[in-house]
């Protein structure tokens, strides 16, 4: 199937990754690559981590050998749920319209 490009927001990808459990930066990048086929570069990753942390959707955990894991907060889980529900609605409408076209 040809690559149609990326439709993913880095923040959404990070929240989705952390929904499965705390991870540090590199682990997030690898997990995101597996489930979305999207390779985030470190600059983009930490730009999104900064924004998510500031919103209170993720929080840092104590560092382990210079690597700091992050975990999703309750607010982050609610935000992720809202965004995915909106995307599901878009998905449903889009697929039904494709079928009619």
């Amino acid at each position: 199937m040809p690559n149609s490009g990326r439709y993913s927001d880095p923040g959404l990808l990070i929240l989705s990754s952390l929904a499965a459990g705390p991870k540090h930066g590199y682990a997030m990048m690898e997990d995101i690559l597996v489930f979305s086929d999207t390779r985030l570069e470190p600059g983009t990753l930490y730009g999104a981590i900064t924004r998510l942390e500031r919103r209170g959707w993720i929080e840092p955990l104590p560092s382990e050998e210079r690597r700091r894991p992050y975990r999703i907060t309750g607010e982050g889980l609610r935000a992720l749920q809202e965004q995915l529900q909106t995307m599901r609605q878009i998905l449903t409408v889009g697929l039904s319209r494709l079928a009619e076209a």
Partner: protein
Amino acid sequence: MKWILELYPLAWRRRYREEMLALLEQHHVTWRTVVDLLLGALVARFDSHFKAESEPDPTARALRVRRAYGTIFLAFPLLVMGHLLVLDGLDDVFYHWNREHSILWKFKAVSGAITAVGFGALFMTGLWLAFILAKQAAQARGTSLVLPLGSLVVAMVLYGVHARVPSAISRLFPLFIAASPLPLAFAVSRRVIPPRLLCYALAPAALAVLGMAAQVSFVAVWGFAIWGVSPEAVQRMANEANRPLLPGSLWHLQLSGGLLWMALMTGTAAWRFGHVLMGFRRDTTREAEAS
């Protein structure tokens, strides 16, 4: 890759540097990674959150800007000395040759324009800051009116002294030199202008340094072009123009010495200005201790 992280704001580095370094040690770094990090540094620099936390001590910043402007203020006249030493009279000698090789004249025109724009901007900035100083002095009934007015008097005197110089550009440069950086340098040292307003003065300083670099580049191009021409032909042209050059290889020495001098002055000014832009931690620490 550590050098790229130094481009991020200080507050960002304090928070994320170690974990980013740990990630980069595991990550396969490509050109995309470098570009991504550079863009990330740029975005972080404009992030108000990091900007607020990274705001250096106003005293340290003011001193750093003063040193940068002071360096540009001193370096430019010295650069002009090198320019005159190198090119004085050579325009006449190469007039006919340059007419056939117009690219050098075009390059000279561009580099001269950049220099003029840079120092013109510096001049306007200096006038604006002098106005602010004068306004504050009038409100406070203080004596700081002496500073902007004094610098303008100095500028007029220098202008009068140099008015006898035939070159039209030479008549303007002393005015720019004395009238533009002095109000800023004194205002910064006395901290009567909020440091945040100093950012408006950084663009003219950047243009001025760029103009100096353009002049050095022009002389380097011209110098190598002259070097490529037959020395006998150069002497013949000089005799025809009635502007004899230094004998033998002495004029090569004149050319090289003038170029090195100009490069040294420009490099010093650019380095000091670089300190202002990058906010080097070492410079901040030393100036904070000095203050």
